[in-house]
C-alpha cells in the first residue's frame, strides 16, 4: 500500500504540577484509521470500524498500606497495573463520578488523608507521557518527594489498603461502520460504554500522538474537519464517567453538524 507518512516531532512538557520533564515524542503517521492503515489523502479514510471492549481484571496480590509501600511497589509493578489504575476505573462498577479519576490519587485522599499528594497525583494526565514507564517514573517521583516533605507516614486502615490490579483487554468488532462524519451524532449516541472506552480512552495509548480514534479518523479527511477535531480535543474525558462522555460527544457532534456550529 502506498502510504503518505506525515511525521513530526512533538515537544511535550509533562508533569503539569511540577514541570519536571520535557520529552520529545515522535508523532508518527497523522492519518491512521482504526485498523492502523494509512488513509488515502483527499479520498477520505476508510469507514470507521466501531469496536467494543471489556476488561478482565487481574489482582496482582500486592498491596500498600502507606506511601513507602506504595513507592516500593510502583518501582516494579506490572506496567498494565499503572494503566489499569489510571483508566480502568472508567469501566469498573462505581456508584458515583469519582472526585479523583485515578486510583492512586483517590486512595491517597480517602485512605491516607493526604490531600497535598492527592492533588498532585490527580493532575497527572497519562496521555502526556510517551509511555507507561515515564508515567511510572513520575508517580514514583511524586511519592518520593512527598516522603521527603512529611514528618510521619499516614497509614491506611488494615482493610483499606491499596490493592494493585491489572487487566487484559478484549476487543471485538461490532460490525458497525461509520461511512461519513455526519453519521457521528447518531453513531456515538448508540455506542456502548465499552466502545466509548476503546475509541476515546484506550486509543490515546494506541494511536500515535495520543489522540482518540475519532480525531484520528477525522484527520484522514485532510483539513476539512480541523475545527471539529479541536472541539473533540476540548472534551475532558476524566469526569462524568463513560455515559457522561458519550453524552458530551453526542451533543458536540449534533451542534456541529445540525446546529450550525460551523
Amino acid at each position, binding site marked *: 500500500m502506498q502510504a503518505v507518512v506525515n511525521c513530526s516531532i512533538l515537544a511535550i512538557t509533562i508533569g503539569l504540577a511540577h514541570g519536571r520533564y520535557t520529552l520529545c515524542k515522535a508523532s508518527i503517521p497523522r492519518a491512521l484509521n482504526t485498523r492502523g492503515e494509512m488513509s488515502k489523502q483527499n479520498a477520505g479514510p476508510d469507514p470507521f470500524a466501531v469496536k*467494543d471492549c471489556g476488561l*478482565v*481484571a*487481574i489482582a*496482582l*496480590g500486592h498491596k500498600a498500606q502507606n506511601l513507602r509501600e506504595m513507592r516500593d511497589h510502583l518501582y516494579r509493578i506490572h506496567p*498494565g497495573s499503572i494503566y489499569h489504575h489510571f483508566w480502568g476505573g472508567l469501566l469498573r462498577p462505581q456508584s458515583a463520578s469519582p472526585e479523583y479519576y485515578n486510583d492512586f490519587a483517590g486512595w491517597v485522599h480517602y485512605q491516607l488523608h493526604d490531600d497535598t499528594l492527592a492533588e498532585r497525583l490527580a493532575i497527572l494526565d497519562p496521555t502526556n507521557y510517551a509511555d507507561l514507564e515515564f508515567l511510572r517514573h513520575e508517580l514514583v517521583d511524586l511519592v518520593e518527594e512527598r516522603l521527603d516533605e512529611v514528618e510521619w507516614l499516614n497509614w491506611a486502615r488494615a*482493610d483499606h489498603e491499596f490493592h494493585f490490579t491489572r487487566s*487484559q483487554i478484549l476487543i471485538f468488532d461490532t460490525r458497525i461502520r461509520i461511512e461519513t462524519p455526519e453519521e457521528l451524532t447518531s453513531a456515538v449516541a448508540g455506542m*456502548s460504554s465499552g466502545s466509548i472506552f476503546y475509541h476515546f480512552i484506550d486509543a490515546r495509548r494506541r494511536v500515535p500522538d495520543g489522540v482518540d480514534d475519532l480525531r484520528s479518523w477525522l484527520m484522514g479527511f485532510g483539513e476539512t474537519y480541523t475545527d471539529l477535531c479541536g472541539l473533540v480535543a476540548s472534551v475532558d474525558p476524566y469526569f462524568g464517567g463513560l455515559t457522561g462522555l458519550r453524552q458530551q460527544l453526542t451533543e458536540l457532534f449534533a451542534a456541529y453538524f445540525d446546529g450550525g456550529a460551523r
Partner: protein
Amino acid sequence: MSSIEDYAAIVGDDVISHLRQLAAPLKGLKVVHVNSTRLGGGVAEILTKLVPLMEDLGIDVHWEVIRGQEDFFQCTKNFHNALQGKQIPLSESMLKAYEDTNAANAEELRPKLEEADVVFIHDPQPLQLLRWCPGRKGRWLWRCHIDLSHPYRPVWRYLRQFVVEYDASIFSLPDFAQPLAHTQYLMQPSIDPLSDKNKDLPEDQVLAVQLQFGIDPERPMMLQVSRYDRFKDPVGVIRAYRHVKTFAPFLQLVLAGGEATDDPEGEAVLSEVRSEASEDKDIHILLLPPDAHEIINALQRAADVVVQKSVKEGFGLTVTEAMWKQKPVIGGNAGGIRVQVSDHRTGFLVSTPEGAALRVRYLLSSPEKRMEMGLNAQEFVRENSLLTRNLREYLSLMIAVMDKDKERIELGAWARP
C-alpha cells in the same frame, strides 16, 4: 426459562448482540461448573440462571453438584467460617471426610471433568476434585465466592495446597486475593432481573405476602434477607431495631432467612435469633424454603428500609436485589458490600448496631432522600450488576484464560488454542 433475547428489553439489543459476538469463538467449548448445592445460597442462584444462558450462546456447558454426608458439610462449613477469619481447628476425621467425599465424587465426574475445556470449581467444597483428575486436558479455575481477606491461617494453608494446582483463581474483590503464583481474576456476582426474585410484582401480591406473615402494611418495616449465619449478624440487626424502636414505636422488623442444604449451622443461629427477639410481636422471624423467591421479592418491595448488616461478606446478592427494587441499603462495612453500596448515595455503610439504627432513623424520617437514593441504587445495578454483565465477564474470562499472557486480545483474529 428465560432466553438470552428476553434480556434485551432491560439491557438493550446492543448488549445482547455483543454477548453473541463474544461467545462466537467459544461455540462448542466444553465447560463444566461444579458446586455443592443446587438450591439455596447465592452460588446456586447464579448458576441456575447463568448455565442456561451460556447454553443459549452455543457453549456446551454442564452444571454438576457434588454429594456428601453430614460430616462432609460440617467440615466445609467450618472451611467457610475459617476462610472468613474464624479460628476453627479441623480434626483429622473431618479432613478425611472431606477428602473421601471429593474422591468419591471424582469417580463419578471424572470422565466429564477430564474432557472439559474449562472447569469452574465453586468454593472450597469441590476444590480437591482437581487432584483426582490427573488426565484433565482443560483449564481449571477456582471461583472463590468467600471473603478471603483474613483467612484463619491453618485452614487456608491446608486448602492452599489444592488451590495452587489450578490454572487460575477468581475472586470477587482484589482485597480477597492471596499471594499465589497463578493468575487471580476478579469478577463480581450479579442478579437476574427476570427471575422470580427480581421481576416486577403486582401490588396486590406484595400486599398478600405482608398479610400472610402478619406484617402490617400500614406501618414502617425494616428488612434483612439472609441465611441464619453469624457473619450476617442477625442478632445485631435486632439490636439496631431496638434502638430505632424508641424513636419509631410502630416499626416492624422482618428477618427472612432461608435454608441451604450445605449449611448445618443455620439451626443454632436461628435459636440465638429467636432468643434475642424474645416475645416482641413486631419482630417477624421467617424461615423460608429455598424456592420462596416471590415471597422474598415481595418482602423487599414492601420494605421501607433494607439492612444487610454482615460483618463478613464475599458479595451480598440480597444487597443488589434490594437496590434493584429502588431500596437504599444499610450495609455492614465489610467485604463486597463496600463496593456494592456507595455510602450516602445508594445507602449507608455501618459498623455497629448503633450505626445501623442511626441510618434507619434517618431514612425513615426522610422519604424524599429514600426515594432519591433508591433511584440511584437501581441505576447502579442496571449498569453494573445484572446477569448479562456477569455473563459477559465469564465469556471474556474464558477467552482471557486461554491466552493469559496477552495483554490485548483482538477477537476477530482470535482462535481457540
